[in-house]
């Protein structure tokens, strides 16, 4: 069971049970869609940007505990950040989970997801929304 306890870090379980800003938004400024064609998980990120700063992120969709927690941590972490900061943070998150950089320089909430490195079949669950948002922000 220890493997599973690593995969489902308390941070992940807490975010899954009570995801941050998990609700449909009627008229968002931007909607960033992510869809995992392998399993059917799908999320919409509702992003508002003002003066080069992400003023709010909400999200809604369906997926496993890891994808839900990943989206929740994303919303909580990136809200209020400048676009450049958000790009950097999402790159940091993705690099951390691909094992390119060590955990020591990443926030604790990011480190909670590093167990997917040894569960490659769950890698997409943890990275999909982050990768889509990173792509979106790079185009801004």
């Amino acid at each position, binding site marked *: *069971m220890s*493997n*599973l306890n690593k*995969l*489902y870090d308390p941070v992940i*379980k807490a975010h899954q*049970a009570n995801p941050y800003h998990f609700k449909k938004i009627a008229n968002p400024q931007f909607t960033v869609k992510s869809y995992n064609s*392998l*399993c*059917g*998980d*799908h999320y919409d990120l509702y992003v508002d940007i003002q003066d080069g700063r992400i003023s709010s992120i909400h999200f809604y969709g*369906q*997926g*496993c*505990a*890891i994808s*839900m927690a990943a989206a929740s941590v994303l919303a909580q972490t990136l809200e209020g950040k400048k676009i450049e900061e958000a790009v950097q943070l999402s790159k940091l998150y993705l690099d951390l989970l691909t094992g390119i950089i060590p955990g020591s320089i990443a926030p604790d909430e990011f480190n909670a997801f590093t167990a997917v490195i040894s*569960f490659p*079949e*769950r890698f997409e*669950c943890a990275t999909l929304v982050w990768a889509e948002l990173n792509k979106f922000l790079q185009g801004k």
Partner: protein
Amino acid sequence: MSFPVVDIKSHFPIFQHHPDLIYLDSAATSQKPQSVIDALTNFYEKENAPIHRGLYPLAAQATNRYEQVRKEVAAFIGASQPQSIAFTKGTTESINIVAQSFLKNKLQPGDNVVITHMEHHANLIPWQQICLLKNAELRIIPINEKGDLELEQIGTILDRKTKLIGVVHVSNTLGTINPLEKIIEFAHALQLPVLVDAAQSISHYPIDVTKLNPDFLVFSSHKMFGPMGTGVLYAQEKHWNEIHPLNYGGGAIKNVTLAETLHKEYPYNLEAGTPNVAGVIGLGAAINFIKKLDLNETSVYVEMLGSMLVEKLQNENGFHVLGSPDKRTGIISFYHKTIHPHDIASFLGNANIAVRAGHHCTQPLLNTMGISSTARASFSIYNTKEDVDKLINALRELKKFWVQ
């Protein structure tokens, strides 16, 4: 019931290498008995040679063995002519051949192709794509909330513009066993060809094409204890000269000049290039393995394991079984009200229980039922009642893990 599972399990070396493995993913691919693995090794060790062109003894023997399997496959499904059997890469390719090489050229704008709402993507996308190309319509026989086809609607769905019906024998998601006889009888009354996808049924259910009378029957070797990458297309004789090559190349020709080519006839026109000879010989070994079982017994056995799981899941708080069809094989999709199927499958995987989680390549079906994915347990002859108990126990542990 008395079924010699212990003895059967000993034929599958995977369980010697993974003694604690509870394999409940046979609907995705079955495990392979030693005799099939030996047939592959034996061919490559002792018999490897090209077929249909070598004039030396080894090549003649390989050709004989390959063609012998064609006869064995035909006999296995009750077809009187071996040349009704074409070897393909699998169910998906077999269906694509019928869509691309048989139906596409006949399809006119305004025509329609009819399939059911429970087809997996392999029996949906090939039809959908040729319909889009030809401005034809893809019509769907709906299912009810139990997961049975609404056959009373078939009369309003089929019409003079219908060109083919594609129907799955056993649903890979719901486990529903469809009443093929009824559908084929109805279609033939309107002189419509019917393609039956037997991918999920061929390993556990007796199929006799002479009695059942489908125009086309397709299945994969790897879901019936045989090797991957090999499959079968059965076609009735009246369609042979309407099935054109899908792939062009050597081995499927009578005469070639730089300007034109005279192709061989069905089924040889579909087998261009060097085919998967070892795979076909492995399929032959798989059929010999199945022939030692009684398919009337195996079908009852997997159904029994399925209903046992359904019954137990119904007593587990929070779990739901998808559908309740009138006749169901040992393929059970289930979900939990709050725990996502992926989290179920990861947990079970950690407990050495292999189940599938996802949309099972039946997205439209799951969308209709209002969910995006399920966990699925599918049974085969090497599973036992103890496997069901262990699954249920693991699901109870899963609930403890998630419900603080």
